[in-house]
């Protein structure tokens, strides 16, 4: 009676020991970080709020494979709980040779500096919010697919991205049509703090596809051309980007949209940085993919960097919409990393 019981106990401990050992042998270096921010604004009335809570996980799986995940918890009025969770990035990276990597999963489309650099970490943003071209959905923020990426080659630190993905209208788990999006981007970093980049994006959005909640009633061939210049030095900060969107349908022909912004900051001290940002969105008459609303925006702000994990910003924003007229707003933000 006792012997079988002892045998079972022994087996159980052997399994436990095995599991513990395997845990040690394949121990991973996994870190979890997070970002959040709270806001106070005045726009005809005072208001308090917050943006998103962002959880960011990295894990080194072995010498060549690594994982990066970014999940965002945010306000969603359509949800029963008023909040929803979204997977913003899910990346498995294989470093196959030198600085060359193959990335599969959902990424922030490597189409411009802001989208490829700041992601959802508002503690890194030089201004409180993103430039207008993001809210206007001029560029595809995310792409699910495969990306061939390399960086820091040669004296000018050349980098590249070549990505094939599901494209606009698709879900992260499945493509909605046979068309694939193609992103090709290159950049150089000739001096410390400077990055000059250019990119090309092409996708076909099929008739009936839903893009950012809008049903597209025509087949649209989209091409995006983007140029960017960024310099974050000891005293001056300058970031400017322009995207030219060419949306073609058989009935309307090709319509052009030009979306640009320029950010400039000056470090009075390492902690205190006054800054400005100007945005311009210009749509050609007859544009059917984007919601046409020519907009100009001016932002004047002050950033106070308490430390690398705590940043406070105060901004005045003046926006001139084609459809709704002008709007003035004052916003304060406290952004943190944890």
């Amino acid at each position, binding site marked *: 009676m006792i012997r079988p019981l002892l045998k079972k106990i022994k087996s159980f401990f052997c399994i436990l020991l095995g599991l513990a050992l395997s845990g040690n042998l394949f121990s991973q270096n996994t870190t979890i*970080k997070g970002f959040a921010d709270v806001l106070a604004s005045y726009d005809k009335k005072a208001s308090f709020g917050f943006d998103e809570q962002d959880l960011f996980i990295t894990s080194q799986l072995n010498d*060549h494979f690594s994982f*990066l995940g970014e999940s965002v918890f945010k306000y969603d009025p359509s949800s029963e709980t008023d909040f929803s969770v979204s997977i913003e990035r899910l990346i498995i990276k294989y*470093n196959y040779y*030198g600085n060359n990597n193959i990335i599969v999963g959902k990424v922030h489309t490597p189409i411009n500096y802001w989208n490829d650099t700041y992601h959802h970490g508002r503690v890194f943003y030089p201004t409180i919010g993103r430039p207008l071209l993001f809210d206007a959905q001029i560029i595809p923020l995310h792409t699910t697919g495969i990306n061939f990426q390399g960086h*820091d080659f040669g004296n000018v630190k050349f980098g590249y991205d070549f990505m094939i993905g599901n494209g606009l209208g698709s879900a992260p788990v499945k493509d909605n049509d046979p068309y694939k999006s193609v992103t090709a981007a290159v950049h150089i970093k000739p001096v410390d703090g400077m990055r000059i980049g250019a990119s090309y994006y092409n996708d076909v959005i099929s008739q009936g596809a839903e893009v950012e909640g809008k049903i597209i009633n025509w087949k649209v061939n989209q091409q995006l051309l983007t140029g960017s210049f960024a310099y974050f030095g000891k005293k001056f900060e300058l970031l400017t980007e322009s995207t030219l969107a060419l949306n073609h349908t058989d009935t309307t022909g090709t319509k052009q949209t030009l979306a640009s912004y320029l950010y400039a900051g000056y470090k009075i001290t390492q902690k205190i940085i006054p800054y400005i940002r100007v945005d311009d969105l210009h749509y050609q008459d007859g544009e059917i993919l984007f919601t046409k609303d020519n907009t100009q925006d001016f932002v004047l702000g002050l950033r106070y960097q308490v430390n690398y994990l705590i940043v406070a910003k105060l901004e005045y924003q003046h926006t001139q919409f084609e459809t709704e007229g002008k709007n003035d707003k004052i916003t304060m933000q406290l952004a943190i990393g944890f």
Partner: protein
Amino acid sequence: MKNRHYIHSGNMLFTKGIVFIVLLLLSFSATAQTETLTVISNEKGAPAELKMTELKSILKGEKQRWRNGNKITIALMKTNTPAGASTCKKIYDMSSDELKKFWLALVFEGKADAPVFLNSASEIESFVAENPGAIGIINQPLANADAHIVLIDGKKSL
């Protein structure tokens, strides 16, 4: 008269106190900047000699692998140690806060793995000795025979 004397003595004490604190701070910052640094690496990875520009590029995460294919792992002293503060200044030309932000941003972008930050030179020596491809910076003579010194521009120390 007495009151004026007390106020005068008080002012003198206050001035002396301020001078003392300023000198103390200056001596701390001088210490941080004058630390002699030595670059060490695991025998499987870094070459015997590097140029300063190459070292800076490696320590900024711009190079993922050595020529032999080993993955580069960076080990640094914590930025609140004199050697860590000196590494920030001499190698990165950044404050400790700037360095932490630099690495957090780089990891967030998915472009590099963060360095391992350790408390002492001996911990860095052990880490470097145990991990092929590891490179580290210490502020004292190398004691671990399993790690070797990397010459920077032909010199043993920075």
